[in-house]
């Protein structure tokens, strides 16, 4: 902490109320909350089908490959895709902003607008 700031708490609160942090937080929540809702719904759709729609899931699509197997493999595919989409999004959209705010708080580096 440098002398330009008051006590620790107000400092964090000042950053928290700043436009840049608020935008960072809003972007984060707008990404992860709907994504979580999506993958949990998709997972429970799968669980409920496997649990209560045996005949549908046992339908053969090709050879011995059943609808249930495709649904199950689909869970793997969606997990891999969401993982890569999130990692790419966070690397490109969030990290630079977070890093700038971090340096601002830890070393007192000036921000171009926003907090401070």
């Amino acid at each position, binding site marked *: 902490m440098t002398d330009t700031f008051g006590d620790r708490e107000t400092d964090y609160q000042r950053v928290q109320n700043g436009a840049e942090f608020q935008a960072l*937080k809003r972007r984060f929540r707008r990404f992860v909350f709907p994504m*979580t809702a999506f993958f949990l719904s998709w997972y429970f759709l799968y669980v409920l089908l496997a*649990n209560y729609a045996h005949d549908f899931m046992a339908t053969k699509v090709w050879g011995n490959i*059943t609808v249930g197997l495709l649904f199950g493999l689909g869970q*793997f595919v969606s997990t891999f895709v*969401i993982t890569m989409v999130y990692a790419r999004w*966070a*690397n490109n959209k969030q990290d630079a902003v977070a890093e700038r705010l971090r340096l601002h*708080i830890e070393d007192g580096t000036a921000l171009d607008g926003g907090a401070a």
Partner: protein
Amino acid sequence: MTASLSSLLRAAESEDIGNPALNIAIFGAFVLLTLVIVFRASRNNKTAADYYAAGRSFTGPQNGTAIAGDYLSAASFLGICGAIAINGYDGFLYSIGFLVAWLVALLLVAELLRNTGRFTMADVLSFRLKQRPVRMAAALATLTVVFFYLLAQMAGAGGLVALLLGIDGVAGQGLVIAVVGALMILYVLVGGMKGTTWVQIIKAILLIAGAAVMTIWVLAKFGFNLSDLLQGAIDTAGEGGEALIAPGKQYGVSAMTQLNFLSLALALVLGTAGLPHVLMRFYTVPSAKEARRSVVWAIWLIGIFYLFTLVLGYGAAALVGPEVIKAAPGGVNSAAPLLAFELGGVILLGVISAVAFATILAVVAGLTITAAATFAHDIYASVIKHGEVSPDGEVRVARITVVAIGILAIIGGIFANGQNVAFLVALAFAVAASANLPTILYSLFWKRFNTSGALWSMYGGLISCIVLITFSPVVSGKVDPVTGASLSMIKNTNVDFAVIPLENPGLISIPLAFVLGIVGTYLSKEPPHPEKYAEMEVRSLTGAGSEKATVH
């Protein structure tokens, strides 16, 4: 367990008795290699950050591999292969829950936790709440999860020994459990988090590589055609074999088993992000970005491994057959080793056996360091000593705890050997999902959340889980309708206090814990601490003030 695998194989392969010796030799080589690495890693184990968090110096890929090593326990390798071989599609359902759960950790927990905590889960939970009561509750929940998980691993070791090393007697198995426990104590005592992490990394690579070789081998036998492999499994199973490729063989029996499955599915998907030994791994990397990379690596490794187990399970069903698997010592758990023998004879069996054994050793080590850190850092240093303890003193207490937990695990493992403890892992996930996850999410995302809410949620989740399990059929009163034998932990079929028909508490305890967190919060008159929430929120998203890597 009257016949050992070696005698079974002797019958199959005319007088070949070389197996156990070869298995022990390969396992011995693994132990030797990892011991050398652990001793090399121990040179820089001075501070608490070194001992608990490996100096925060692992890279994302390294830590991701170690996470996979921690997560892919013997239960997931032997258990899931066996479940697919016997129950077909229903076994596959397990692995999906175990995998999708990682998205909760990736999106909601890993990075924020890395940015706000130091060594344990309780660091994050107590960040803006009252230190001592919250730490105590979090430590109790952690120790409960770790204890159940540890006991399951140690008890499993006994069965595995019978299967892999051809040791039949209770005394002999007890001796091997003691050796496993002693080795684990040595790893954790000397190597700390750094040594433990390297053991996990080596084990994960061996396990995944071994499974990959077997998967390609199985697929090659069926012309790399998944449909033909499934046909092979159907043909070997004989009458009713078609049930293997449809859901419902295990969980579709009645409305109650379906409800059990729903409960398990909920506990699996929400439990992972609350497992303390997994959470602690996020502190071994230098930044939130590396924590993210860790989870990305872990998801790929774990996902690919579970795809392998799908092939291996159906491969065992096709090439070994459910009847042979059920008759083998170790029962369902023997599917993967028997498949290895079928494919590559004694050598591949030896390698796979040694890897399975190394898996138990590594997972047990990871659990032990988590329990030690929790006891020393949360209970001893913060609750008992009010935070007035030197880092050296804390690490010394942690090391003593390692020995104590190791001895407890050995005694528990010998005592639980041969018991039906499969429910313990499911219980560990249920406790993690009900006692830990709600409070983690509330404290990271809900401004109004307070100490009272945390205590209601954690104790409510923990106690409801344990009560529900105690009065469920897994402890008493479950009888096999065909043989009349007990399927519960209490073998006396006259004892029956199972008033709750649900075998996994998650369906009740998880929503309950989430609700209790809200109720407890609104019932308390504790004034809000906007300045603490500001600090936590800003730190969690930016990484400001987070613990940095130590430089040696």
